[in-house]
């Protein structure tokens, strides 16, 4: 591990220890935050009892569907806009200010359209995630050097193999930035929507525990989500670093 890595670990450990101490000494009442050690114990109980496995599966499935839809559709929409400079000029300012809109306020619309359940949740998550993929696609396609297209033509490659064998790998490091963002937004969209739009899932389980004053369970679930997101993000980061390493200085 790098020096920065060790320092980072130390900072996290210090923060956790400080919270533990504050809770144990009674500076923070257990009705507000429970000690991290209790959170971990609660997490172990949750996993061992298996009572939330169904919620975990439902949430992860929604995240996966939302991420795949956002990445696939976002790439397609981005590619079409990119091929059409006039349309691009018109919509790019809209894309740039898109995240100023609090997408969640549209939740009643989605309940009307899809009813309460996974479909509405996935729809909100896609709405949140897709624009980051569209923007990344526009950037990625812009960054394909013209000289690579010339080189492909010198090799007598047609438009389809040029796009697939030259354009795509050349744009991939930039596209992957969009993939990472889309996955992050899919998590946010799904978990947050489950608070209001669902009878199942990790977000719902947290809200349920909160409403029943079950702090121990609530913090155990939160810890679980943090761990899942960290694992996913670490995996994506590893791929990202490999792709970025190939870009020229």
């Amino acid at each position, binding site marked *: 591990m790098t020096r920065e890595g060790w320092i980072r670990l130390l900072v996290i450990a210090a923060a956790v220890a400080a919270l533990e101490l504050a809770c144990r000494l009674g500076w923070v009442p257990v009705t507000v935050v429970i000690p991290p050690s209790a959170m971990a114990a609660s997490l172990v109980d949750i996993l061992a009892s298996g009572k939330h496995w169904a919620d975990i599966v439902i949430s992860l499935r929604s995240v996966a569907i939302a991420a795949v839809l956002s990445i696939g559709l976002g790439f397609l929409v981005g590619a079409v806009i990119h091929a059409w400079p006039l349309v691009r000029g018109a919509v790019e300012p809209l894309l740039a200010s898109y995240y100023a809109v609090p997408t969640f306020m549209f939740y009643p619309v989605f309940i009307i359209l899809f009813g309460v359940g996974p479909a509405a949740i996935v729809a909100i998550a896609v709405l949140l995630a897709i624009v980051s993929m569209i923007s990344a696609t526009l950037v990625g396609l812009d960054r394909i050097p013209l*000289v690579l297209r*010339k080189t492909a*033509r*010198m090799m*007598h*490659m047609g438009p389809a193999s040029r796009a697939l064998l030259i354009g795509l790998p050349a744009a991939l490091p930039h596209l992957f930035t969009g993939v990472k963002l889309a996955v992050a937004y899919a998590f946010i969209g799904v978990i947050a929507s489950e608070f209001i739009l669902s009878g199942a899932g990790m977000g719902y389980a947290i809200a349920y525990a909160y409403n029943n004053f079950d702090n121990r369970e609530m913090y155990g679930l939160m810890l679980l989500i943090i761990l899942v997101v960290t694992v996913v993000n670490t995996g994506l980061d590893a791929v990202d670093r490999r792709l970025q390493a*190939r*870009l*020229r200085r």
Partner: protein
Amino acid sequence: MSVSPAEVAVVPDTAMPHARLVGVTRVFSRRGKGEDIHALGPIDLDLKRGEFFSVVGPSGCGKSTLLDVLAGLATPTSGTAEFEGRPIAGVPAGVGAVFQEDASFPWLSVTDNVAFGLRRAGVDPAEIARRVDYAIGFMGLRGFADAYPAQLSGGMRQRVCIARTLVMQPRLILLDEPFGALDAQTRLLMGDELLRMWRETGATVLLITHALDEAAMLADRVGVMSARPGVFIDIVATGWDAERDSRIVSHPRFGDLTGHLWERLRVESLKHLREG
């Protein structure tokens, strides 16, 4: 079995120029957003089969545009371009190009970069391995066969692109300032390699360069271009024999040659400087 007429036509006609440009111009239309850019020409040029032709000219005079026309990547606005007796429409078979910008594929290793075109063309794997290995050795990339372009210097990446073009065994090789990223000494040595390759393959070479000594040492003929729109203001035959190498830089005639080239180019380069 009788010989079909098509096969007869393949026999090279030594009297016919290998590539021919007649009255070629290229104008970039700005579609109403300001004046059109007259980038090149009119250019008349006959490249003899197997000759080494060098082009020098002030920056922005249309050298790369000239290369695009010969490569079939750009159509002349007026005039005609031919390769091996046929009009150039699209990239002709048998033409290879190394561009001014780095065109190595960053997602492929050096070996895969060099083999890319051969694999696309469906060449037999054993033959690919043989040619790629030879080209990598030839270009001094032996220790870097498994490296990725991001791990190489600019000059080495350009050598990857040259190797990738050479393995296709083109009959006309177009090179756009391929040694621009190299220091003067390495450049001379790479020039020697280029001459060796040229003698070995018998290909016709068109080399664009901004180094007058490079042009004078490598070429059979040097074409000097005016400031934009570039036309040939002089074409100088160097008179070297084919077995030349970088040691001719100490030949008394070498100084005369570069002196003459600079004489012709100085005025044009000044124009470029003044007009920006």
